[in-house]
């Protein structure tokens, strides 16, 4: 009881001590006052071109890396190292016939790829790609815009992007796209919950939803350390959100052909393809911003020469390096993991990720409360200690659980000899097992069931 009272008192003190300094901490720290509208327009165009070029590059990169992982060269004929392969593919798509199935709802069928393609770009406007630089005689941050609810905006735009998928699936007037679209939508919204919850821990540490403020508050310690579990959950959910392997269930070729874009061809298909890759960049950029310190240099390099590498255009370099590490991770996943089953995927999302992330949010809130009340804003040691202890406990629990699991699995010893027809249908023997010879008893039961012993003999000789 006294502990609670002291916690309350501590919290009160902490709040009074900290409140004045945080008076406007949730507002963006990036200063756009010296950015005229035409410069914003130029920056918007630059971001757009950056995304297009990166998409062209990453498709080539993915095919090359996958090729290397599968012991083959990958595309290497078009341009130097095959770099122009994606451009050639895009041109080829443009010159293909643009089909509209006769069962399709024409308007929605046309609208869906546009939504999927256009919405993907918008989120990137709030991603901070670097510190303040000088462009055309003005001092402006390397970020298109920032608002006090920037991260919420990304989630909102992602929510609108889902309409592209569901509309494509519904309007195609065909069974596979309908099922693929529904699956994809259910998948994206299920994982959006866990993704949204994983970000709460970051907001607790940064005290802001503005991306520039979040980057600024990671100056001393990247949030991947105090919010490591959130990072893990985010990485899983971002793969689920972007419909990428091992979670590309909407496009399971064996069951649904292409999923929601089965009926699409030519540039309409290209829009879905583009949207998927731009979305990959967006979720990776958000992960970089939220957990990996955004455009800030890695800890060792940041200390060199009084933070020289954290200024000007250097920020863009670190940002791009972090962004592309995530892209490599996506490709790596695709190269190494098989697709999961849909029920396993949904069970993992609803029954594991959501409750565990909620629990994590509550514990981070307690850690943060203790930090604010007892240790003060600047002390990160407490966080590191608590996180270390929690991860040790989690590891120990996992180890114990694994042990129990094995212990439970061992007693089910396999019999030396099995009757292949005991369960009503033939079962092959496990390694080391012997098939029981067809006994008279079995023959008798067969004969009893049919009443014609000579028939069962015939069956056996046939079979």
């Amino acid at each position: 009881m006294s502990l609670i009272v002291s916690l309350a008192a501590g919290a009160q003190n902490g709040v009074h001590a900290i409140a004045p300094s945080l008076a406007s901490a949730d507002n963006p720290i990036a200063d756009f006052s010296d950015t005229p509208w035409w410069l914003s327009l130029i920056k918007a165009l630059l971001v757009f071109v950056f995304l297009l070029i990166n998409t062209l590059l990453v498709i080539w990169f993915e095919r090359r890396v996958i090729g290397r992982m599968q012991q083959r060269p990958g595309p290497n004929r078009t341009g130097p190292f095959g770099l122009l392969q994606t451009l050639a593919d895009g041109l080829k798509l443009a010159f293909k016939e643009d089909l509209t199935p006769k069962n399709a709802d024409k308007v929605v069928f046309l609208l869906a790829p546009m939504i999927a393609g256009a919405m993907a770009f918008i989120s990137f406007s709030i991603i901070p790609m670097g510190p303040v630089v000088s462009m055309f005689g003005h001092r402006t941050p390397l970020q298109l815009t920032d608002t006090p609810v920037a991260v919420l905006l990304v989630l909102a735009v992602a929510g609108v992007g889902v309409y592209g998928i569901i509309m494509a699936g519904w309007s195609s007037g065909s069974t596979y796209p309908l099922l693929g679209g529904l699956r994809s939508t259910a998948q994206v919204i299920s994982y959006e919950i866990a993704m949204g919850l994983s970000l709460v821990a970051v907001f607790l540490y940064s005290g802001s939803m503005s991306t520039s403020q979040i980057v600024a508050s990671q100056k001393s310690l990247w949030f991947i350390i105090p919010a490591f579990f959130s990072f893990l959950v985010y990485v899983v959910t971002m793969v689920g959100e972007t419909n990428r392997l091992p979670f590309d269930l909407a496009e399971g070729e064996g069951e649904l052909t292409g999923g929601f874009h089965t009926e699409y061809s030519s540039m309409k298909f290209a829009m879905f393809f583009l949207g998927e890759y731009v979305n990959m960049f967006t979720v990776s950029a958000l992960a970089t911003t939220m957990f990996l310190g955004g455009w800030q240099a890695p800890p060792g390099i940041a200390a060199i020469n009084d933070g020289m590498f954290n200024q000007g255009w250097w920020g863009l370099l670190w940002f791009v390096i972090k962004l592309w590490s995530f892209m490599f991770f996506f490709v790596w996943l695709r190269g190494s993991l098989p697709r999961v089953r849909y029920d396993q995927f949904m069970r993992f999302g609803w029954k594991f990720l959501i409750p565990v992330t909620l629990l994590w949010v509550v514990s981070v809130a307690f850690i943060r409360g203790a930090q604010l009340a007892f240790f003060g804003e600047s002390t990160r040691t407490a966080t590191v200690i608590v996180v270390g202890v929690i991860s040790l406990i989690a590891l120990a629990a996992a180890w114990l659980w694994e042990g129990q699991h094995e212990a439970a699995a061992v007693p089910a010893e396999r019999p030396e000899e099995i009757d292949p027809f005991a369960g009503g249908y033939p079962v092959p023997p496990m390694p080391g097992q012997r098939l029981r010879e067809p006994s008279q008893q079995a023959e008798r039961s067969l004969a009893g069931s049919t009443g014609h012993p000579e028939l069962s003999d015939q069956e056996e000789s046939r079979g």
Partner: protein
Amino acid sequence: MTNPYVPLLFLAACGVGFAVVSVLGLSFVGPRRYNRAKVDAYECGIEPTPQALGGGKVPVKYYLTAMLFIIFDIESVFLYPFAVAFSKLGLFALVEMVLFILTVFVAYAYVWRRGGLEWD
């Protein structure tokens, strides 16, 4: 630039413009050869099954998922302002938020127990 949403519209205009130009503009570039089988629904070489728009049914499971999504999405939306203003609100907010999470957790446990999270 005082309004932070104007640059957002610039980028949105780029994206929408690109999508509209490439989908509508380039749709005239490709060939057009009519073929009855080509405009049919894509299925494995058989007559297409009765499809969605004409009364094809959707498993009710998806509606349930959508409703559960709304519950938990609202929960996380309530957590955001709490997280942002946490350092100013202090212990009161912490206790309140734990109670709120527990309340939603009761609904979650109920749904789990009734098999609402099963997927077959």
